[in-house]
């Protein structure tokens, strides 16, 4: 049976006291997002995202399927987030009904799928009878907090990197061209939503809900696992580079000042911009690396611009 991780009183006190002194265990400041490392594997749509000790692997794959009857022009897109005890002993194999597991899968679903980040109409092959069914398998390899943020980056990087095989439609007949036969096609990604999670602490452990001038409340960005265990409230905002809010999730916990929400969005925007650029940069670098012989094989004439 998976057991919740317990943190000793001494350690929790230490972490909270340090937070009061503006110190975090890994030496970050309050508003510092961990450095994100994005690695791309051999196959299209194979991405590993590392943030500190958190590690998430995402694999995009596709197959031909039949579209839903009420949405004949749309392809299928499914995100699967199954936890294994590999990420930590608090996760149980095959049990995705735990509070945390459900929350993670709901958040990624909302941030990526429901926000229309992927152009599902571009997955249609023959309206009403054949379409691409795309799936993103998110594998949590190591959990040190921030699973939602890391998974969102991994899924979006995967979608941007993935290429589906080219198809030819001749009347009713669909021919799928293998990747080595014809250049595969990229997906239509409409925008890149990035999640940023804020954690709130109320170090004066009294039920101090009246927030006056001497409000000692602390808010930090991108909590590690131990900070996640101790936090009193959590807020996840999802933004894209167009300064649009995709979703905001604040499920109970410590009440927060309404205006500080704007402040959080501002802080998040800087991070979102940096990460979005990083994703684009990594994907572009990989494309160039894969295409290093393109200029030899290409027969296109150089044109004056």
């Amino acid at each position, binding site marked *: *049976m998976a057991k919740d991780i317990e943190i000793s009183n001494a350690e929790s006190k230490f972490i909270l006291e340090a937070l009061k002194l503006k110190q975090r265990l890994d030496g970050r400041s309050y508003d510092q997002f961990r450095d994100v490392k994005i690695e791309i*594997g*051999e*196959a299209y749509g*194979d991405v*590993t995202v590392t943030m500190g*000790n958190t*590690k998430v*692997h995402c*694999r995009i*794959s596709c197959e031909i399927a039949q579209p839903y009857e009420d949405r004949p022009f749309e392809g299928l897109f499914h995100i*699967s987030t*199954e936890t*294994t*005890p*590999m*990420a*930590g*002993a608090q996760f149980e*194999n*095959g049990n995705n009904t735990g509070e945390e597991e459900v929350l993670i899968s709901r958040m990624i679903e909302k941030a990526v799928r429901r926000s229309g980040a992927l152009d599902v109409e571009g997955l249609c092959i023959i309206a009403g009878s054949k379409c691409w069914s795309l*799936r993103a*398998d998110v*594998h949590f*390899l*190591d*959990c*040190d907090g921030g699973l939602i943020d890391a998974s969102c980056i991994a899924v979006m990087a995967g979608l941007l990197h993935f290429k589906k095989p080219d198809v030819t439609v001749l009347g009713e007949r669909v021919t799928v061209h293998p990747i080595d036969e014809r250049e595969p096609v990229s997906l239509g990604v409409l925008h890149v939503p990035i999640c940023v999670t804020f954690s709130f602490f109320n170090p004066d452990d009294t039920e101090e809900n009246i927030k006056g001038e001497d409000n000692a409340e602390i808010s930090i960005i991108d909590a590690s*696992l131990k900070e996640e265990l101790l936090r009193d409230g959590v807020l996840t905002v999802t933004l894209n580079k167009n300064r649009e809010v995709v979703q905001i999730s604040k499920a109970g916990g410590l009440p927060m000042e309404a205006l500080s929400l704007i402040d959080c969005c501002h802080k998040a925007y800087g991070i979102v911009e940096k990460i979005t650029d990083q994703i684009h940069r990594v994907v572009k670098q990989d494309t160039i690396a894969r295409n290093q012989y393109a200029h030899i094989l290409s027969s296109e004439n150089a044109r004056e611009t």
Partner: protein
Amino acid sequence: METTTHVLGHVDGSSVVSNSGTKVICSVSGPMEPKSRQELPTQLALEIIVKPAEGVQSTREKLMEDQIRSVLTPVLARYLHPRQFVQICLQVLEAGESRDYTVKEVSVCVNAAVLALVDAGVPLLSMCSGTCIGITTEGKQLVVNPTESQLAKCESVHVYCLELGTNENGDIDVRNLLLLDSLGSFDESQLFKVLETGEKECIRLYTELRSVIKDKVAKDFVWRQ
């Protein structure tokens, strides 16, 4: 074969092994307290979880789990930890073969699991290593560690795992055949050729695994000097 050990922070042991297009990450937790239905009164219980790179677990992964279990069970010193259990999680990162085959994944999983068990410090009675072999339709050639395209041209495919150790004189000691799983069309002489070639390849892998572990131990115990 490329290997890395101790890659994950929240489990007792872990490893990443990749071999000709197949890549697996493995984690080991334990020996720890089991669920009551898993508990064995006299021996260490073993839970093996295999997750595919794409899609969810199916009967295909159940069969892989069963094969890996039959390889690892005799190798573990199970009598040392009665009423406890070890959890081995294997996440396939790159399958390197189509869904109709499992040979490459199984053989890489076995090697990854052994390294992760060593990393976790779970007592073993001996070592084991696994390889896969294909016999081509044309020419009936044995291909050790086939690539995905070579595999598709094979008439029969085989997974071969060997229990190995080193005796007091430092010689490699072949202890037992742990698993041979063959599918496709083949005959008796081909079967014995596979056994012969597999043994050589497993011994080669074993020396490779040993040197990886040697380097690892030298690095991990640097404080002792």
